Structure formats: C-alpha cells, structure tokens
C-alpha cells in the first residue's frame, strides 16, 4: 500500500463537498491516504510553528549584531573612521534586519523556503550561513551518526539477551548498570576518557578531528587520522548510548516474554535462540526502530559539550562560536536544521510504520 497524493485542488474543497461523491467519498475509500494527508498537514503546521518561535526568540534577544560586525571590520582593516549611516543601512539590509519585525520575518521565511537561504554569516562574512553550517555538518553526522548506530545495535542485542536471561547475574548487572548510567551526560564519560587516554597514558589525541599535518582528502592516512581522533568522542557517546538502549530494549522484551505465542513456540520444540530472534525480538524491534529514527533526527542538534571538549569542528562548536559573536543567522540556521530534521524523521516514521507493521493503525 502506498500513500497516494490526492489532486491538489481537491484538498481545498474537502470541507464543502458532499459525502456521496468527491473528496470525502474518496477519502473514505482510501483511509491510508487520508491519514497521510492529515499527518502531513500536522507536519507543516508544526514545522511552521517551530521555525516561527525560533525566529522570534532570537530576534527578541538583546544585542546588536551589526555593531559587532562593524567593530570586527574596523579591527580587521584598521578602519577607524565612524561607520557611515549608509554602510550600516546596507548591512542591516543584507542581514535582513531592516524594517519592523514582521517584514523581517516575512523576508526571512521567504528566503528560507524559496531559496534555502539563511542569510550571510557574521563569523565568516560574507559567506552565507548555510555554507558555514554545511561545512561542519559532515563532522557532526559522521561522529554522532556512526556512534548512534553502534550504540543502537549493541544496546538492542545486549538488552534482548539481558531480558531473555533475566534473573541471571549478568543480566541483573547489565540492567542495574544501565539504570544508573543511562542518564549520565556523554560529556562526563568523555572527560574521564580524555583524562585516562589522552593525559595520563598519552596514547590518543584529545583535541581536533584530524592530524593537522595531514592534508584532508580521501587518503588512507587522512581516514586513519580521522578515525583515531574520533575514537574518544565516539566512544563516550557509544558507552552511554548503549546503556540507555539496553534499558529500553529490556523494558520492551520482558512483557513480551510472558506472551502465549512464546510458550507455544517453546512447546513446538523451537530452539531458544530461534524463539528469541524470530518471535521475541521481532516484536520489540519496531518501537526501537521508531525511537532510533527519532534519535537520528536529534543528531542534527550536534552535541555541544562533547564537541566543545574535543574542539571537534562539528555543528555544536559552530553554534557556540556563533553565539559568542552574536551571529544570528548561523544560530538560527543551526536551530532550523535541527527542527527540520527531527520533525521530518518523526513524519517519515509515522508514514512508514503502518507499512512495516500491519498492526499499526492510526486511522479509523
């Protein structure tokens, strides 16, 4: 079953058409399409609402970025004369800061939606903010994405085994450790790892994302260097992430283990391992995929503290630099990307889940 998009005109008329023919009737014949349309409508509303709140939040902040920019320019070019009104007006226009708040908002949204343009960045003027963000995005996605996948796989496997062998010592240990550590910030583990491996033993680097003596590019040296530098920050995320997935997988597994169909499977004489993978795990990996999808969406938030500690050139570090320099366009851009990715991840999951699992029915 695929969610077909209805004719564009038809959606506008949905309120006044008669139930016998037209859109209502079509929708009642295609409940999945109706669900998809409603879900997509909610997505648009949420996306618009979140972007709007973020926009006004940052615009209502005190602080004048133009003054900061002019000061920077004056320092950089040893340009001491007072900035003329024309220059200020020109910059205001370029940064989308002219006119009242409403015009600013409309211009911003227009540029964002029609051209994907976030406006010039202040830290790297005149580079557009989207370029600055795109430069740091691969680092964040690489580091957090790979760590998230590893943590998920490890967590689901260990969690499933812990649930399966409940009552055993190893299982109780894994569960209690998970309860104690699943909410500990990645940053704490990162700090301890840095202390042990970088400062005390001196075996792994503590800062940056790759060896600055190696030219970036697709070469074995560079890739090896990136892996070596990414090991500590990645490990800190994998450790804590695994614990929280162990806990949630176990919580999903245990109620399933009491189900009748597992007793039946055992009575049929199936092997334990087969029951675990084909019967028990199959029923709990779906919610875990949902949760994983959402957590992948949150990756685009970057991890400010871990990236800061390792001076990793990802989104989090860009964000902190941008905030320190009042770079509104970049800050807002990072926030917008985070909002977009989380909402899109949830939307895709909601649309795909009914196809994956016949029991999922959001529509009536």
């Amino acid at each position, binding site marked *: 079953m695929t969610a077909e998009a209805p004719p564009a005109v038809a959606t506008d008329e949905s309120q006044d058409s008669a139930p016998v023919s037209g859109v209502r009737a079509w929708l009642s014949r295609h409940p999945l399409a109706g669900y998809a349309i409603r879900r997509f409508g*909610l997505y648009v*509303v*949420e996306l618009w*609402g*979140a972007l709007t*709140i*973020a926009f006004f*939040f*940052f615009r209502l*902040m*005190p*602080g004048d970025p133009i003054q900061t920019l002019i000061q920077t320019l004056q320092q950089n070019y040893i340009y001491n004369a007072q900035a003329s009104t024309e220059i200020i007006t020109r910059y205001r226009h370029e940064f989308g800061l002219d006119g009242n708040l409403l015009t600013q908002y409309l211009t911003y949204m227009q540029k964002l939606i029609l051209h994907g343009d976030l406006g010039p960045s202040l830290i790297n003027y005149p580079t557009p903010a989207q370029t600055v963000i795109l430069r740091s995005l691969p680092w964040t996605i690489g580091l957090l994405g790979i760590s998230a996948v590893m943590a998920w796989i490890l967590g689901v496997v260990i969690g499933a085994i812990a649930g399966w062998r*409940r*009552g055993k010592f190893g*299982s*109780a240990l894994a*569960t209690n450790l998970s*309860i*104690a*550590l*699943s*909410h*500990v*910030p990645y*940053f*704490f583990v990162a*700090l*301890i790892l*840095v*202390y042990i491996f970088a*400062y*005390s033993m001196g075996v792994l680097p503590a800062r940056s994302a790759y060896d600055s003596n190696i030219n970036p590019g697709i070469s074995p040296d560079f890739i090896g260097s990136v892996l070596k530098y990414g090991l500590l920050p990645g490990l800190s995320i994998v450790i804590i992430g695994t614990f929280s997935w162990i806990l949630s997988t*176990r*919580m999903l597994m*245990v*109620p399933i283990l009491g189900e009748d169909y597992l007793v039946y499977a055992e009575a049929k004489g199936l092997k334990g391992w087969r029951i675990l993978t084909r019967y028990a795990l199959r029923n709990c990996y779906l919610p875990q995929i949902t949760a994983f999808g959402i957590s992948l969406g*949150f990756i685009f*938030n970057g991890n*400010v*503290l871990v990236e*800061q*500690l390792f001076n990793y050139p990802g989104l989090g570090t860009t*964000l*902190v630099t941008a*905030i*320190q320099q009042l770079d509104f366009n970049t*800050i807002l851009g*990072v*926030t917008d990307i*985070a*909002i977009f990715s*989380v*909402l899109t991840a*949830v939307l895709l999951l909601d649309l795909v889940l009914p196809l994956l699992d016949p029991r999922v029915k959001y529509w009536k």
Partner: protein
Amino acid sequence: MRLLTAVLRTIRNSRRLATGLVILAVLVLVALFSPLIVSAIGGGKDPIELAAYDKWQVPGPGHLLGTDQFGRDVFAMVVKALSVSLQIGAIAGVISTVVGVIVAFVAGYKGGWIDNVLSTFTGILLVIPTFPLLIALSAYAKNVSLFQVGLMISIFSWPFAAKTIRSQVLSLRTRPYVDLARVTKSRDLEIIVTELLPNLLPFIGVGFASSALGAIFGLVGLEIIGLGPGGVIDLGQIIFNAIGTGALTLGAWPMFVVPIALLTLLFAALNMVNIGLEEVYNPRLRGVAGE
C-alpha cells in the same frame, strides 16, 4: 493520612524506588547541612575564600580532596556546589512540573479544540532544540541569579512533563469513577483535585524527577561553556574550572572526578526513582527489573 500510608507502602514494595529515594535523601541532607560542613572544614575561617590555603595541594589529611588554583578547599567547594546543583533542580523541577500539570489537565480534561491547540503547541516546543536557546538566553542575560536560570530552564522543560501527564489524564478521564463524579458533582476543579490528581501522583513524580535531572544537567552544561549565573558555584563550574586551569594535565583528578561522581550518583538516584515509580504503576513492566 491515607495517602501517606499508601505512599509508604509503595516505597516498601519497590526496592529500586527505595534505593533511589535514600540516595536522594542523603544528598539532600548533605546539601542542607552544607554550611555546617563547610565551616567545620574551614575550622574558623572560610575554606572557599580565595587564597585560603596554598594552591594546588594534593589530597591529604588536611585537605581530603586537595586545593584548587586559588587555594580553595575542593571538598568544601564540592559540598557547597552540591547544594547549588540540587537547588536548581528543585527550582526548575517545581516550576516545570506545575506548568506541565496545569497544561496537561486543561488539555486532557477539556479535550476538543483546546486539547488540539495545546498539544500541537507542546509538540512544537518539544522539537525546538533547547540547548542552543538556553545558551543564547544566558549569553545575553548577564548577571542572572540562580532562580532566573531555573526559570529559563523551566521554559524549555515543562513540555516534557505536560506530554507524559496528559496521556495519563486522557486514560483516567474515561474511567467509570470519574463519570460517576461528573454525574454527582458539577465542578470540574473538584473532580480534578479529588479524583484525578491523587491517581496521577506517580506520573507527576516522574515528571518532576525528569525535569530536575534535565535542569541540573542544563546548568552543568552552561557552566562548562562558561555561561553560568554569577556568584554561585555549582558542580558544573568546578568541572569547568578543572578543564580551564588544566587540572587534567596537572593530575588534580579530584577537581573533576568528584563532581562527576556526585552528579552521576544524583542522576542514577533520580533515574531509579523514575523507573521505580513506573514499575509500581505499570503492571506490564513489573518484574522488568528482575527482582
């Protein structure tokens, strides 16, 4: 009174909940007596004063955890900072739980378009990344007090509490005893306070614990970036100090290991309370802990 015995019975039945609460109670007690402990360490003078002792002393009988770059006693600082961290958790936890509960009750109990509007709004706030906004807020709001920081953190944390509690209100609203109350009594407020609220206490507890946890970590995060409120030392600031002054390279491990250990203990305790409460009130999860 009946409520109290019910609460006590719940705690006795869940080892996990009890453990979490005991650890929390010990930490709160240390925080409450922190002025006494600090002055006992100082023995007449203020151990947290700048240049109270020699700088960078290693842990020993005089200074259990050594001294920092200003010659302050690290143990005394940690004790005092613990109480600050707990305060922020309490402030933000209370504010966001109260707001969350009110929104959840209005949305869940009234239903209809009010619920739609409130839930959509809550959903929108949930996807806005909170940490950038928090950093931005405190970068521009210089010289903020601890209470104001708590308030700022609550702005972003109440939606979590609201979401959890609303779904519970929705399921409770249709129970027969609520219908019965609605037939006999007329006022919504009375039904909410006498019928719904007592049944939702565990979920409110979960909401409070999660908000407090988020707030404590939020402040730690702000401090580590160097944007915390002025004039107070919390556990995050000690960690920030340790990183900033190179305590990692100097081998002054107590400066960051002890705050991290304390915060980990605190997070573990709050999480135990959370999971304990969920296990007690969700029969499907009972025994998940393998007890």
